[in-house]
C-alpha cells in the first residue's frame, strides 16, 4: 500500500481505510490536509463520515507510517503525535485472518 510521496501534495497526508472502514467511506484511501493531531483524527473523520466513529473507529487501531500509535482523545493539542504532510495513516479494524 505504498503510495509514493511524489503523488501527494506537500500539505497532505494519506489515510487508508480497510474492511468495515472502507464500506462506510466508500473508498480505500484519500488525502487529507496536514497537520492533524492524532487525538483529533477520529472527530475529524466522524464529521466527514457520520457514524464512522461508533461503527468502526471506536474498535479500531491507528497506524502512522506502519507504527501503531496511541489514540487518546482526552489529550490536549500539546500532547501526543502530530500527523505530518507525507505521512501514511491507516485505520485498522479488528482483524480476521485465517
Amino acid at each position, binding site marked *: *500500500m505504498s503510495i509514493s510521496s511524489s503523488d501527494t501534495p506537500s500539505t497532505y497526508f494519506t489515510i487508508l481505510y*480497510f474492511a468495515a472502514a472502507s464500506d462506510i467511506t466508500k473508498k480505500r484511501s484519500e488525502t487529507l490536509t496536514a497537520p492533524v493531531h492524532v487525538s483529533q483524527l477520529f472527530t475529524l473523520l466522524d464529521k466527514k463520515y457520520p457514524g464512522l466513529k461508533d461503527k468502526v473507529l471506536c*474498535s479500531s487501531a491507528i497506524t502512522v507510517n506502519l507504527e501503531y500509535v496511541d489514540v487518546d482523545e482526552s489529550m490536549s493539542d500539546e500532547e501526543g503525535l502530530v500527523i505530518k504532510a507525507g505521512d501514511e495513516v491507516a485505520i485498522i*479494524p*479488528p482483524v480476521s*485472518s*485465517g
Partner: protein
Amino acid sequence: MASEPADSEKGGVREEPNIHVELTHAHLSAQTIIDRVKSPKAGAVVLFAGTTRDTFASKPVSQLVYQSYVPLALTTLLSIAREVKSKHDLTAVSIVHRLGEVPIGEESILIAVSAPHRQAAWRGGEEALEETKKRAEVWKLEEFVGEKGVWRANRDGAVGEKVDETGEGNRQSS
C-alpha cells in the same frame, strides 16, 4: 468489493534464514510450504491448512474475500515467525496467507513449522496460527448467497472487551 487488486494491494514476501512469510493472490501449495521448512535437522514437520467453509451460522457462504495492509501484515507475520521460532526452538517457520477471492473449499492460510521433535513442532505451529489470527492485518469478507457481505472479526470487536472464544467471529473458517 471483490474488484481486481490495485498494484499496491498485490502480495509480498519477507524472508530471513529459516523464516518465510508471504501474502499472495495465488493458490496456496501445501507441498511448497512443506518443502520450504524441511531440513535434515528436523524430524518433525507440522502443517496447518485453513480452508474456507461453505456456511456461517447455517447461512450459505458463496465465497470469502481477504484484504490486507500488506507491508504492515508482512512485518507482523515476520515478528510472529521469529517469536515462535525462538520460543519453541523451531528449525524453520513459514506462514502464507492468500488474498482476494478464495472460493469455498480452498486454502486461505498455510502454516508449516519444522523442529527436531514433534512436541515443539505441534506447539510452535499452533502458536503461530493463533498469533496470526489475533494480530495479522488481514480482513475477511464473507459473501453470502443473495446477500451483502459481512466483514468478520476474529475477536468481538469492541476495544477492551474480553475475547469471547465462542464468539461468532471465531466460528468461520480455519
